[in-house]
């Protein structure tokens, strides 16, 4: 699954034009890959819940950030612009 998602991302990198759907697919891919590694390789799926939540949250926030930056670049630029 992880390898399939990686090869899918490579295909997107080589061929797809930027769009909301493509960005959504990339964001979901990041989240799913992260959760798989955290739950199965790191074995956090039945570990102390604070540890699991912290790591899984990372792979919720990052995909959401990817989407927000795609959807609202100007708004975010205005928000973080120190000269305004």
């Amino acid at each position: 699954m992880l390898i399939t998602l990686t090869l899918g991302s490579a295909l997107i990198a080589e061929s797809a034009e930027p769009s909301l759907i493509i960005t959504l697919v990339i964001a979901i891919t990041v989240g799913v890959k992260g959760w798989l590694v955290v739950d199965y390789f790191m074995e956090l799926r039945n570990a102390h819940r604070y540890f699991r939540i912290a790591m899984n949250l990372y792979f919720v926030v990052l995909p959401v950030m990817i989407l927000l930056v795609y959807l609202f670049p100007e708004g975010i630029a205005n928000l973080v612009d120190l000269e305004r």
Partner: protein
Amino acid sequence: MADSSVIADRGIPETGQPLSFLPKPNRIPGNGAVWVGIYAEMTEFALMFLVYFIAKVFHQEVFNQGPLQLNTLAGTLNTLALLTSSFCVAKAVASVRMNRITTAIRWLWGTIICAVFYLVVKTWEYYWNIEQGIEIETNLFFTVYYYMTFNHFLHVGWGGGAILWAIYRLKKGAYSAENHEGLEAIACYWHMIDLVWIIIFPLLYVLR
């Protein structure tokens, strides 16, 4: 942390094979100290990702064109190498839980091979970049690219050193099915390195 009760619960002594690879609930894999390190590293990379996002909203055209100029093959090969290396580490931990020390060592050497492969591919990619005229100061995208990827490159380097240390400790008989907290800690750190690359790859090579 693996203690004897956990092992007994999973029936290793009777069958030689664990009933499940899942350790007991509510545990902290490895030890607390390594998680301080892991969260510190994840925070460090989170700041880099924040810089990436902020730079991207101010320089959208540069960040849209940047991924097209990078070597996608190198990025993909390195992703596959790190995923494979994480699999090898997970198999090594599972082997130790079955007291198969020699097998665990072989899996860890698999991790080292993947790590060296990653380092070689990344070095080749940097040389390839130079041939294409891509350098740190080419534009802001490549400044972020070099800062992020070289930082990760260093992590793979010293993470590989930690894996070598685990191999040495296994050969010295320091880890067993009953006691392998140190190996678990190193394994978690290595998985963290893989996790960070799972984010870096799409941000720099795929996303436009």
